[in-house]
């Protein structure tokens, strides 16, 4: 009994960690095969991380002293994996009571206590894009996070400096909501109309405030403040990156047309199962796609998918990433990326880019992460075999040079907080459908779903 308590004390030391601001670490990873993404594969190469940043990459680097040394001989060192579509680590997912909710933000619902975070780290993931749900045409703002597991403070997970992003949703999810509630939109036509209306409303709003600000006499009364309109104005001015849940080729094309009309240049399509059908158009617009490796047939709008989506898009010059949208899939994104070799023969580097540099670009954080380059953050995943092999097992995961996962120091119970009144044996039998929050997003006139805070 005492031994167990001792284990507890040693093992759970991290739970008492208090991070005033994100901890930065130092580590020297020696002699691994470095998959840099931007500079090819570097054999027998060291990576030195100091104060959370990659300071040096080279062979036989000298130990600056007082730095933890990791012997990566025979192992593969890649950039920490980035999941561009996730719903873990959040206490609410969807404010589904309105079809336009640009004003809400996932930063208000970050949950650092989710064990899924640790399990993602155990799959080599270091950053995620915590997204709003897909029930609304214009959904809420998303939050880019780093998986600094072990803290009770949600602010510690924020990816400082990451650009603002927002969720749009097209197709069956929002139209189903409209049909249930007896309001627009109930068709894809209505979805487009709602987006155009919202943009035009925002332009009016901006005009009113610009007029007020231009002539600021002390006797002028300010117009009404509307956080929703403020946010949409920011979208129009390119200050917020739009990530739109979408499936069908025609709605993907529609959104690009709408965005062209309003002068919005940056756009990433999420899921985009039929993106391959409009690959040339996506490439011409400069839009990106963040897709599944092979999920399909769960709804009518994905019935005509192909697992060759990633290969077709990549070959047509579209920046493509593979995401999970699932607390289960996130744990083996390296395997999901590897499927692009089976379906379309992407090269090793192309496949790895799908889960590193490409999603980093889609989130606007490519100057910080997504490759192993001097100056970038020390977000690293180490595998015992090449990550694209089915037999690869993640060994260690670093965020900002701090080790958050080590397979040799892994305890089963990784919960940060335990309810003293919980039962010892709480078995939950998962069904496939339980993970696909985004995909089968039930609409919120079903009162049960509506009130569901906890996912």
């Amino acid at each position, binding site marked *: 009994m005492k031994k167990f308590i001792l284990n507890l004390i040693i093992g759970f030391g991290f739970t008492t960690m208090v991070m005033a601001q994100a901890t930065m670490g130092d580590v020297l990873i020696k002699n691994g095969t470095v998959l840099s993404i931007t500079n090819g594969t570097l054999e027998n190469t060291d990576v030195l991380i100091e104060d959370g940043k990659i300071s040096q990459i080279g062979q036989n680097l000298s130990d600056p002293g007082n730095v933890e040394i990791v012997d990566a001989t025979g192992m593969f060192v890649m950039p920490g994996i980035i999941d561009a579509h996730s719903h873990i680590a959040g206490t*609410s997912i969807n404010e589904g009571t*309105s079809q*336009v909710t640009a004003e809400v933000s996932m930063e*208000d619902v970050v949950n650092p206590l989710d064990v899924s975070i640790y399990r993602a780290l155990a799959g080599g993931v270091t950053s995620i894009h915590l997204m709003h749900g897909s029930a609304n045409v214009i959904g809420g703002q998303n939050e880019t996070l780093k998986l600094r597991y072990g803290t009770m403070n949600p602010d510690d997970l924020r990816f400082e400096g990451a650009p603002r992003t927002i969720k749009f949703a097209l197709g069956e999810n929002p139209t189903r909501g409209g049909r249930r509630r007896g309001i627009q939109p109930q068709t894809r036509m209505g979805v487009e109309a709602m987006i155009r209306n919202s943009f035009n409303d925002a332009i009016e709003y901006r005009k009113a405030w610009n007029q007020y600000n231009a002539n600021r006499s002390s006797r002028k009364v300010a117009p009404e403040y509307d956080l929703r309109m403020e946010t949409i104005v920011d979208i129009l001015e390119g200050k917020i990156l739009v990530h739109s849940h979408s499936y069908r080729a025609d709605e993907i094309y529609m959104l690009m047309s709408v965005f062209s009309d309003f002068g919005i240049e940056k756009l990433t399509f999420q899921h985009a199962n039929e993106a391959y059908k409009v690959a040339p158009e996506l490439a011409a617009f400069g839009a990106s796609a963040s897709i599944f490796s092979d999920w399909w047939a769960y709804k009518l709008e994905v019935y005509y998918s192909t697992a060759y989506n990633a290969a077709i898009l990549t070959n047509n010059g579209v920046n493509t990433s593979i995401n999970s949208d699932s607390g289960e899939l996130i744990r083996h994104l390296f395997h999901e990326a590897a499927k692009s070799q089976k379906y379309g023969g992407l090269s090793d580097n192309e496949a790895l880019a799908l889960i590193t540099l490409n999603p980093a670009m889609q989130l606007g954080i490519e100057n910080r992460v997504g490759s192993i380059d001097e100056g970038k953050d020390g977000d690293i995943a180490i595998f015992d075999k090449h990550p694209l092999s089915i037999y690869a097992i993640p060994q260690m995961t670093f965020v900002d040079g701090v080790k958050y996962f080590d397979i040799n120091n892994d305890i089963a119970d990784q919960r940060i907080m335990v309810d003293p009144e919980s039962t010892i044996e709480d078995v939950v039998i998962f069904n496939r459908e339980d993970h696909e929050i985004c995909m089968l997003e039930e609409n919120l006139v079903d009162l049960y779903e509506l009130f569901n*805070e906890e996912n």
Partner: protein
Amino acid sequence: MKLLRKLTFRLLLLLSFLMVSIQSHAQSDPTGSSPATTTYAITNATIVPSPGIKIEGGTIIISDGLITDVGINVTIPAYAEVIDGTDHYVYAGFIDGMSNTGAKRPEAMERPDNLFTPDPPNDYAGITPEISVVEQLDLDESSIANLRKIGFTISHSVPHGKMLPGKGALILLRDGEHPDDVILKQEVSLLSQFVGAPGAYPGNTLGIMAKWRNLYKNAELSKRHSEMYASNPAGIVRPSQDRVLQAFYPVVDRSQPVFYNAKGMLEARRALSLQREMGFNLAFGNLEQAWPLINDLDKSSVSVFMSLNLPEEPETADNEDLSEEVAQLQARRVEFYNRHMNQFDALNNAGISFGFSTMGVSASKIKKNIVAMQDFGFDSAEALATLTTNAAAILGISNIAGTLEAGKLGNAVVTTGPYFNDESNVKIVFVDGYKYDYEIKESSSTEVSDEIANDVLGTWDYNAISPQGEISGTIIFTDETGELTGTINSAQGMYADVLLSNISYREGTLTFDYTIDFGGQSMELIVTGDIIGSDLEGEISVPAFSTSFPVSATKKDPN
């Protein structure tokens, strides 16, 4: 004609004033309930005027609503009722940081037929910051008497509601004819909680946070507009009279704090974010998990009332058969139980002064919980401070309450031994100078009236047909704790052993309500029924979905 009416009106007004003044100075009381004297002297007691100070063999005089003297050699007025306080302790009356004491939950709003969920009416959405708890006060509410019985004399009472239920007031836990009789101070707080609109915007935390920011910002603009207009309206469009925004004005100018009913650590952090962004004065009214936040509480100037709702101590089976895994899981539960219990001491060590709140705890558990804290480094002096001086300081009433000092309100608790001992009982409570006696019983079973014992106590099998299907199960009423309590089960597995609240039985009609967890959201059900013999016929109403349906129940034969 008009003149006559005016005169009549004025006459009536005059008469009513006279009547009021007659009543307050009435000498004759046919009911016999008026006290013989309004001056009391408790002698030879151990008096604890403030935490850490003891006066052995002391005397305290409470007269006409105030404490007039405390000490050893105190002159006892001739007209005083003298109470022998030998072997008794006297403390300043306890102060409850936040609860719904005295407030009756209003009938739920019906869901409008053409509800436009993205933009519901404010009152339906629960955005009613302009409402005062005074409107909900019902002096027949048993909560007042229940809290008083365990030594509380002042309660910061807040209204029932959803996201922004309204303004709180400090009330004295005494009897009265009219709610105005118990009000000590009004408009002391703006209550906020993370409770969404039923089926409308804002539905959950996401919408609530955004709505808050929007309301606050617009309140700032509207206030500025109103001030500008008030100083010189010429040429300015008239300001909106939006009552919701107006309710925020005192919060915007920092004269009124926001009291957040955030229990868990994460909810508390969301509230702290809002405070950081907008700068209003924030108090946590009912915080359960402070221990993960101590550093942040330390740095901010947030006031804290800790919830008296403590977790049950986890069982630890200690047999040899236990697998390593189960032993570890048990140990983890204990670890977090300890952290919760240790947090009161931890807060003190961090120099964070806090009070207690009784929201959501049944009065019978409160003393037990406070006593339990003493096993975790939180001694009785600290507990007393939390119940009295700290709370008074946070609520801004230190000059009139919190200690036993001449000149302060006549609020005191007299116990048969140190309050914080298990065995001691509350004998007398003074509120606003009124004396309330309590009988100490060996077993605590006669608190419940014979009528209730006869008609209500027992196990009932109930059956109701709701729009969603059959609901059935058992309701058990007992009086083991000395007061009428009840629990309800659902045979369909929707809920088990849910504690009933606001149980009242009057003239054959039983009412109670209970709250269940419906998919992560609290849903309240209110039951009203008439009891005839061992049959109950009535109605269950579900305010959240504005629906009600009939229910019937039969009391089981105990044999």
